[in-house]
């Protein structure tokens, strides 16, 4: 029977870096997939629009936990063994991609229509319109909700402990199994999550204020 002391606290704190790493990887991969789906949602081709809408709807209507189970246990039954870290990042990336696609679609749509018309009249091709005119503006608009979503992503990494990956949450559980001082341990775990998420929440709110101020010309 151990007691909960500095070494245990340090162990938990160190595992927090895995939580951050997982968030970063899921966010980068999720952004790439999400960006593609956002543009597909706005495509002129009906089939692409439908497909992207379907993907987003399905991913947003199932628990992340199920995506994780399917990618870890489900695939291993099919003979594909994913290591826990890979299954965890892939599931969170899929989850992030759907929400980011939706956020960015909204941001692209809120760029005034005249911007499309003006850039078309300059004989820019659609990719050029996106690259030079629309996306730079959409990116600014999308910043507050994207940062806000990062908070959700950090929090959702906590479920990956279920496939045995030692993130912040799992470290807390391991220490709890050794010391049985759940109250202190989970207070610390909650405090670390809060220390990561709260500044992001504030940043998101601050960006929103700044944007609103700059838009009210």
């Amino acid at each position: 029977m151990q007691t909960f002391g500095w070494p245990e606290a340090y162990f938990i704190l160190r595992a927090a870096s895995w939580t951050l790493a997982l968030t970063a990887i899921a966010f980068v991969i999720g952004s790439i997939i999400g960006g593609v789906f956002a543009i597909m949602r706005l495509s002129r081709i009906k089939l692409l629009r439908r497909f992207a809408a379907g993907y987003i709807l399905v991913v947003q209507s199932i628990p992340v936990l199920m995506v994780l189970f399917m990618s870890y246990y489900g695939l291993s039954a099919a003979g594909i063994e994913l290591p826990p870290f890979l299954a965890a990042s892939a599931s969170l990336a899929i989850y992030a991609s759907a929400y980011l696609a939706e956020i960015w679609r909204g941001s692209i749509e809120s760029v005034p229509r005249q911007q499309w018309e003006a850039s078309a009249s300059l004989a820019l091709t659609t990719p050029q319109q996106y690259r030079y005119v629309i996306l730079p503006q959409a990116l600014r608009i999308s910043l507050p909700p994207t940062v806000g979503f990062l908070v959700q992503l950090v929090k959702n990494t906590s479920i990956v402990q279920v496939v045995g990956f030692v993130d912040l949450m799992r470290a807390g559980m391991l220490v709890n199994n050794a010391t049985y001082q759940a109250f202190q341990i989970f207070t610390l775990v909650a405090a670390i999550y809060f220390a990561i998420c709260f500044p992001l929440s504030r940043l998101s709110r601050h960006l929103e204020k700044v944007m609103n101020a700059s838009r009210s010309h």
Partner: protein
Amino acid sequence: MILNGVGLTIVLSFVAIGLGLVLATLMSALRSLAGSWAGYVVDAYVELMRNTPFLVQLFMIFFGLPQLGIRMNGIEASLLAMTLNLAAYATEIIRAGVDSIHKSQIEAGLALALSRRQVFQYVILQPAFARVWPALSSQFVLMMLASSICSFVSVQELSGTAAIIEADTFRSFETYIVVTGVYLVLALSLKLALNWLGRKIFPQVSGLARLSDAHGEAA
């Protein structure tokens, strides 16, 4: 087996949504009507719940509280965690709705000799609710999906049954596909039901600008 799991998922979600909404309305009223310190307490609670994972909150209740002599079973702990979590999100959403009500409306209400309580109920709360109903609906669906996490404290809801069936039959992929499909049906039905309900309770808002957040907030 799966049916029992579905039943429990539905019951957990409905009770948590009902209780959470009542709690959120009370907290919103506290923020609007009581002194500033009550507002600070509510704000602190909302920030604390929104910036920590639901799973940590659940473990705090299920594993942490017994140390203070408060014991409960998995279902009770799940219900409490879900209710407290949803209440925080709903309070934040309702706050956005309340903030969108123009001051002139409130002044008009007071000029009509309505009491502060009446103004809060008819001029602030109901129109605010009507505006944020879509955002609240998304939050309810997210809570239903988050209830899957309650399987971690051995609650036999839908995900919990999936794990058991999988252990019994070793047909994991099929099991998870079926259960995922059930969640999909549940989520879509809930979305449709909430839209219908919104149109029924707040018929007069169709013309109003509806506030909704695109933040994909999850528990």
